[in-house]
C-alpha cells in the first residue's frame, strides 16, 4: 500500500533526509520509504522505486515529500507521522540544543556573526552556487565548493574573480581538503608534518595523506582543486595557485600533486610550473603511463601508493609498500584460487566495487596490465568503457560515486546502499569470483562504512555457497586510527568475517588481480 505526503516550502539537506528515510524504513511493516526534495531527478528515483504518487508528481522542488510503501494503512500512517516529527520537531530540537552553536539564515547573516571569516564551505545545488560564491568573495572569504553541477562558465568566473582578489577557490566538486590541521568536508584526521598536497582527486588526497600519516609522517596543508580545474577551459587556476602557496609555505618541505589533466595545454603548463618549483615534488598524473620517473626536482609516480611512498622517502622515512609476493600473502592468494576453482569450473573474474573515484582509477591502473579484458565506467586508458554501468562483464571495476549512480542521492561514501545492493547482484553471477572493495573513512563520511556492509558481504557469500561457489573478498580501508570511525576497528570488523584487508588500495588491487591470475594457472593445471 502506497502513501505519501507533501510538505510545501520545506527544505532539509539531503544527508538529513537520507537518515530520516533510513529511520522510517526500519519501522514495523514498512517495506520501502523515501524522504526527498521533490526535484525532477528525485521524482524519477521515486518512480523507479515504485514510490511516485500523483500528489508527489505535482509537487515542486521547493516541497519536501515523504512516500511510504507499507503492508497496512496503519503502518503507512505511523511512518508518515514519524517522518513529520523528524522533519519539524527534530529540526526545532536541533536548533534549541545548539545553545552555543551559531546559526544564520543566510550568508549575509553569517558574515555579521563572523566578520573575520576566512573560509566558506558551499554544499548547495550547483546552479545556485555562483550568487553565494560571488558574495563571499566580495567579502574577502576563501571558498571550498563541494557542490557539483556548477556551470563551467560560472566556475571560470568565480575562479577569475578569486584570483584577482588573491583568494583561494577549492572546487566546485571538491570533496576533500586539510588546511592548517582542520579536515574539511570528506577528510581524515592525519598527523601534521612537512608534506603539502595539491589534488584534483578527492580520495587520492585521502589515500596519500592517510598512507603518509599511518607511516609516521604528516601533512602541512592539502589543497583540493576540484576535477574541472585541470581542464583546458579552467586552465589549472587552483592547481597553479596551490603550488605557489605551498612553495612559500614555511611548513611545507615536500609537495605532492595528484591530478588527471584532461587537457594538453593544462598538462604543458603544469609541467612548466613543476620545473620552477624549488621544493622536491612528487606528481601522480592518474592513468598517464607514459609519464614516469625523476625529472629534476620532480618525481612522476604511476599510482597513489607510489606517490605516497616516494614523498615518505623524500622526508627521510624508509617505509616500503606491501609486497604481494611475501610468503604470507602468496599463501593467501594460492589458497583462495584453490577454493574458487574447486567450486566453479567456468571463467573467473574480478569485480571492483568502489565508493572512491580516484581509488577506482588507481585500481584500473593496476589491473589493466594484469587482467584482460578489463571494463570500467571511468575513462582510464587501457580499460574498456562499460556500455551500461549497471551491467558488469568479465573483469570490471566500477566507480559507484559516478553521477550515474548518485543523481539525487547522497555520495556513495555517505550512503553505502548502492554498493551493498550491487554486491548482492554481483554475487549471483558465478563468474564473479574476486570482490575488490574500498572502505573510506573520515569526517562527513558514513559513521560505520564496514559495519554497514558486513551483512551484505555475508549475504553475497551465502548466495555463492548455496551453489558450492567461493568468493574472495579483498579490501582496503582508507583512513587513520584517529578518524571518527577508527581504522583499526573497521579493519578488525572486516577481518573477523574473512575479508582480506591490505594497508593500501594499490596493494589490495594487486592481490585481487593475483587471485584471478592464480585461478587461471590453477585451471590450466586441471
Amino acid at each position, binding site marked *: 500500500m502506497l502513501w505519501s505526503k507533501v510538505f510545501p516550502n520545506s527544505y532539509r539537506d539531503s544527508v538529513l533526509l537520507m537518515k530520516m528515510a533510513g529511520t522510517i524504513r526500519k519501522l514495523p511493516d514498512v517495506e520501502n520509504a523515501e524522504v526527498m526534495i521533490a526535484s525532477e531527478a528525485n521524482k524519477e528515483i521515486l518512480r523507479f522505486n515504485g514510490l511516485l504518487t500523483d500528489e508527489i508528481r505535482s509537487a515542486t522542488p521547493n516541497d519536501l515529500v515523504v512516500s511510504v510503501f507499507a503492508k497496512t494503512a496503519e503502518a503507512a500512517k505511523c511512518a508518515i507521522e514519524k517522518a513529520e516529527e523528524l522533519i519539524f520537531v527534530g529540526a526545532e530540537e536541533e536548533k534549541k540544543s545548539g545553545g552555543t552553536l551559531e546559526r544564520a539564515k543566510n550568508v549575509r547573516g*553569517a558574515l555579521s556573526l563572523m566578520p573575520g571569516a576566512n573560509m566558506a564551505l558551499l554544499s548547495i*545545488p550547483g546552479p545556485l552556487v555562483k550568487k553565494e560564491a560571488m558574495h563571499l568573495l566580495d567579502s574577502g572569504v576563501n571558498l571550498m565548493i563541494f557542490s557539483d553541477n556548477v556551470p563551467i562558465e560560472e566556475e571560470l568566473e568565480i575562479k577569475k574573480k578569486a584570483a584577482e582578489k588573491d583568494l583561494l577557490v577549492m572546487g566546485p566538486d571538491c570533496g576533500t581538503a586539510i588546511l592548517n590541521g582542520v579536515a574539511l568536508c570528506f577528510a581524515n584526521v592525519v598527523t601534521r608534518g612537512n608534506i603539502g598536497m595539491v589534488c584534483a582527486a578527492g580520495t587520492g588526497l585521502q589515500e596519500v595523506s592517510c598512507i603518509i600519516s599511518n607511516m609516521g609522517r604528516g601533512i602541512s596543508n592539502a589543497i583540493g582543486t576540484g576535477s574541472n580545474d585541470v581542464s583546458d577551459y579552467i586552465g589549472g587556476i587552483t592547481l597553479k595557485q596551490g603550488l605557489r602557496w605551498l612553495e612559500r*609555505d614555511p611548513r611545507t618541505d615536500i609537495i605532492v600533486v595528484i591530478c588527471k589533466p584532461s587537457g594538453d595545454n593544462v598538462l604543458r603548463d603544469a609541467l612548466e610550473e613543476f620545473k620552477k618549483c624549488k621544493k622536491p615534488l612528487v606528481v601522480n598524473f592518474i592513468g598517464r603511463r607514459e609519464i614516469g620517473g625523476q625529472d629534476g626536482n620532480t618525481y612522476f609516480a604511476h599510482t597513489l601508493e607510489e606517490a605516497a611512498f616516494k614523498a615518505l622517502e623524500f622526508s627521510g622515512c624508509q617505509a616500503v609498500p606491501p609486497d604481494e609476493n611475501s610468503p604470507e600473502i602468496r599463501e593467501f592468494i594460492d589458497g583462495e584460487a584453490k577454493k574458487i576453482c574447486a567450486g566453479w569450473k567456468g571463467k573467473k573474474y574480478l569485480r571492483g566495487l568502489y565508493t572512491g573515484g580516484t581509488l577506482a582509477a588507481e585500481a584500473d591502473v593496476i589491473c589493466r596490465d594484469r587482467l584482460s579484458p578489463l571494463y570500467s565506467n571511468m575513462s582510464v586508458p587501457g580499460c574498456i568503457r562499460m556500455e551500461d554501468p549497471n551491467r558488469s562483464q568479465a573483469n570490471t571495476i566500477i566507480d559507484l560515486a559516478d553521477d550515474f549512480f548518485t543523481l539525487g542521492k547522497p555520495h556513495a561514501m555517505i550512503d553505502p546502499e548502492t554498493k551493498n545492493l550491487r554486491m548482492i547482484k554481483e554475487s549471483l553471477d558465478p563468474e564473479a569470483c574476486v570482490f575488490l572493495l574500498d572502505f573510506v573513512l573520515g569526517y562527513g563520511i558514513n559513521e560505520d562504512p564496514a559495519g554497514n556492509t558486513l551483512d551484505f558481504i555475508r549475504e553475497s557469500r551465502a548466495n555463492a555457497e548455496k551453489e558450492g561457489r567461493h568468493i574472495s573478498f579483498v579490501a582496503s580501508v582508507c583512513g587513520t586510527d584517529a578518524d571518527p570511525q577508527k581504522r583499526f576497528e573497521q579493519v578488525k570488523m572486516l577481518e573477523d568475517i574473512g575479508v582480506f584487508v591490505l594497508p593500501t588500495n594499490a596493494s589490495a588491487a594487486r592481490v585481487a588481480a593475483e587471485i584471478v591470475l592464480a585461478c587461471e594457472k590453477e585451471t590450466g593445471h586441471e
Partner: protein
Amino acid sequence: MNNLLNEELSIINVGLEIFYESCLAQDASVVQVDWHPPAAEEEEIDDLLSLLM
C-alpha cells in the same frame, strides 16, 4: 598577501550540516547557514539589499 595556510580557520558552512558538525568536532570556529533555495521574491529583495549595501 593571503596567509590562509597559516591562519586559524573561521568557517561559514553553507549547506550540508554534516560538514558543520565535522568542524565543531575539531573545535574549529564555524557558523552554520540554514540555507534553503530562495523563493523568487526573496531573491529579488536580496538583490536589492545587495545593491544598497
